[in-house]
């Protein structure tokens, strides 16, 4: 997904089956952030329009995420979901009450769920700018970016919208720290 010389190395075609490693990440200065933006923009340019067009969620998880997007998420539940995601780096298509996959055969490769969760994290951050939301969003977007070719057209448009929003959040965060 990124060019050979890119410092942005956080995509992996084996994700989400294999976890992308973020521990002790190397410092690359401003160039790293430019490469990050370029890697995101490359896929955004592939769609006619970056807009969130997913309307009918199909999976149990994405149905829940969609309702949280519309009605606002309970912070405790969202925190638990983020915790599970950070540990597993997977989004399952169906969860039990404790946000664990309902059984060992539950799918974690239905990317619609990832795109809905990305959009949910963006809306949650806009309501309450907690860094946990952005941190999970970036990791989630790396996974979807790693699987870009597997998305259908509506998922691509919707995900491109999420990427654009993600970059705007990062830019605003940088501006707030200047």
């Amino acid at each position, binding site marked *: 997904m990124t060019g050979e010389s890119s410092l942005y190395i956080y995509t992996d075609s084996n994700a989400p089956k294999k976890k992308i490693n973020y521990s002790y990440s190397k410092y690359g200065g401003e160039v790293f952030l430019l490469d990050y933006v370029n890697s995101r923009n490359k896929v955004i340019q592939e769609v006619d329009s970056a807009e969130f067009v997913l309307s009918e969620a199909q999976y149990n998880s994405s149905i829940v995420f969609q309702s949280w997007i519309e009605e606002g998420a309970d912070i405790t539940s969202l925190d638990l979901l983020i915790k599970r995601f950070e540990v597993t780096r997977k989004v399952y298509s169906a969860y039990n009450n404790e946000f664990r996959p309902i059984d060992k055969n539950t799918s974690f490769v239905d990317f619609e769920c990832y795109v809905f969760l990305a959009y949910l994290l963006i809306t949650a951050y806009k309501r309450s700018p907690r860094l*946990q939301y952005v941190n999970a969003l*970036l990791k989630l977007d790396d996974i979807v970016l790693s699987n870009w070719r597997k998305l259908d057209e509506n998922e691509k448009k919707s995900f491109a919208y999420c990427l654009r929003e993600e970059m705007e959040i990062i830019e605003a*965060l940088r501006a707030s720290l200047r």
Partner: protein
Amino acid sequence: MKRKLKILLLAGNTSRAKSYAQILAKNTSQNEVQGLFFGHAEKEYAVPTLDEHTLDFLEKNGLFVPDLSESLDHTFQKREWSFTHIHTADANGEEVLSMIASTQCDIVVFAGYGGQILKEPHFYLGKKYLHMHPGELPIERGSTTIYYSILNKRQCSVTAFYMTEKIDAGEDVLCQTYPLPKRGVNIDAWFDNIIRADCLERTIEIIGNQNDVLQKTNARSEEYYVIHPVLKHVALLSLK
């Protein structure tokens, strides 16, 4: 009245453990220190380089800079402190547990390998385990919290607390604040370990003075997870 402490350093072969050992060795108090070093045969250890900018920042802020090329064994030998090696990197292994159980000590200072968590059996041994967490508890629980402190425009802190089986949740002994590092200071290899070691030294002093539990605050607990490299860069590039 000051109490003479018996301290067990439960240590992996890491920069953090060396920083802890050397700051304990520097202290002239008569505390009795023993070492339980684990995983040495399995782990290759590369000594991180110390650039001038980082050294300058640490020295200007009066922080002790350890010699990370010095082995744990050597530090202990210089003070004539006893130590034992266990060749498993598993901090929760039977061998480690039984060694701790048979050691007479007031506190176990934990300096394991990155991401290691002590499991329940440790907390049934009747020992007090001390951990240095970078961040103010309970509002900065979890991982890589130095970067989150920077992003949240807060000072850096280290909280010394007695561990329980619940992560970052035991009784606090000390929460010490530190200045934000300057841009370019090596945080992962130096600053993080050095402020933790500094807090350890202060904490041992407090415990020796028999004044060792902080009043818990009612602040809302916030848990953070390994920081994404983009956020890490935003934090580092915001430093002056």
